């Protein structure tokens, strides 16, 4: 689906999340890492949620992870991000953090989608300003 076909919600960044969205537009998945407790986290925040340190840095995630769980949404409509049925998924990144996403490039069939399967990031421009990270299966 191209940007002009997307009718779902279009996020508006806050100052704290702007670098994440800028990077996504460049095809990079940014997460954050705490330089004090050495843990990664997501979603973007100016302080580490593990130890509240302000000593945090943006890092590019490797983009690989596993499909923790998913549902297959049958709900069509203007606020849907993709034509129904589509897969709403939670991915656990190799660095540890989890995020909500869509699993794409896969048949929306429970027999074809296994929890814990390896996935990798892909990017979809949904407007001139906003690009969404989504994930697709890794075929080994």
């Amino acid at each position, binding site marked *: 689906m191209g940007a002009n076909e997307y009718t779902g919600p279009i996020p508006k960044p806050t100052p704290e999340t702007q670098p994440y969205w800028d990077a996504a537009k460049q095809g990079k998945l940014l997460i954050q890492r705490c330089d004090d407790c050495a843990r990664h986290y997501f979603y973007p925040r100016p302080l580490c949620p593990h130890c509240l340190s302000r000593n945090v840095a943006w890092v590019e995630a490797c983009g690989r992870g596993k499909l923790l769980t998913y*549902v297959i949404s049958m709900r069509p409509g203007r606020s849907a991000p993709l034509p129904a049925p589509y897969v709403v998924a*939670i991915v656990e990144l190799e660095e540890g953090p989890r995020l909500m996403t869509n699993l794409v490039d896969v048949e929306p069939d429970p027999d074809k989608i296994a929890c814990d399967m390896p996935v990798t990031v892909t990017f979809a421009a949904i407007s001139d300003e906003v690009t969404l990270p989504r994930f697709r299966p890794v075929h080994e």
Partner: protein
Amino acid sequence: MSEPRNLRASAAIVGVAESDELGRLPHKSALAMHMEAAQSALADAGLRNSDVDAVFSSGRIMANEVPEYLGIRPRFIGGTLIGGCSFIAHVEHAMAAIHAGLCEVALITHGESGYSRVGMPATRWGDDSLNFQFELPYGTMGPATGYGLMARRHMHQFGTTSEQLAEVAVATRKWAALNPMAMYREPLSIDDVLNSKVISWPFHLLDCCLVTDGGGAVVVTSAARASDLPKKPVYVLGTGECVTHQMVSQMPSFDQWDAAIESGKRAFAMAGVRHADIDVAELYDAFTIVPMLALEALGFCKKGESGGFVAGQRTAPGGEFPMNTNGGGLSYTHTGMYGIYTIIEAVRQLRGECGERQVPDAKTAICHGTGGQWSAAATLIVSTDK
């Protein structure tokens, strides 16, 4: 030092009521249903609005609105909004405030025009909210997604089946058949559930709660004051609550319900009762998976074993484990924030007011709710015995 255990049985629930009607009520606003339920619950308690010195409500933009509508000037105000279990948490907060001497008669009210949307506050996530940035663009439009994500993981990890989920819907419908206030009362089979439309796989339509309009109210006072009131007091033996996240993607675990593990542990510790002492369980059933994970989190069965626990209609009328005896959110009513109805039904069961659906000799009950998408949990253990 003060400790939660000191609160045990210091307060009692002395009045409960629903709004005059439940269901699809385009002729009533949400606030009108707060009021109907409040008036009936106070009458049930033998009290007037002028006796009330604390009001707890949820789901409005400001907590000031309900007291004004009801003609009450509370000196203690609760507006905790953590989702459908808010009202269960309100009981804990009311008990603590009463114990501390800050108030004596607490009125907890709920009213929601969840289906007809009459007089409901306009609420949506702003375009720059966290939900709008990190979840909604992926089509997480409703709770069927957030609750379904846990159901799918449970099936993968523990072998839980769609048939086992359906057992909950079928058993709950059998209780609804015995409740004149329930919306859907005709019998349901496992096949009916499995053959109903898929909404958000693994959920079928009949795995999902109703969408209705209605209200409910609960009156809490000190154990001392309760003994002077007309109805048999239902003592609050134990309470617990916990919040672990807001967006479901930030949930700490996907193989167990952490918030409920904590709230349940606290409630049982305060109450000092064993699981075998619980005669009735009212466990918020937004979707069939929710009471199943509650059974695991609260310790009625082991992690991963709720599918086997609910099999064979164990939670149905006449079964070993009476659960959601009003017909639940699945078949009785689900206005949106269902939690208050777990309290109303538990109190009625313990007073012996439930007619055809009465659980014989019920003395002790547990109420448990979810808020948001597994985000919050609140637990209440109540009993006619101190």
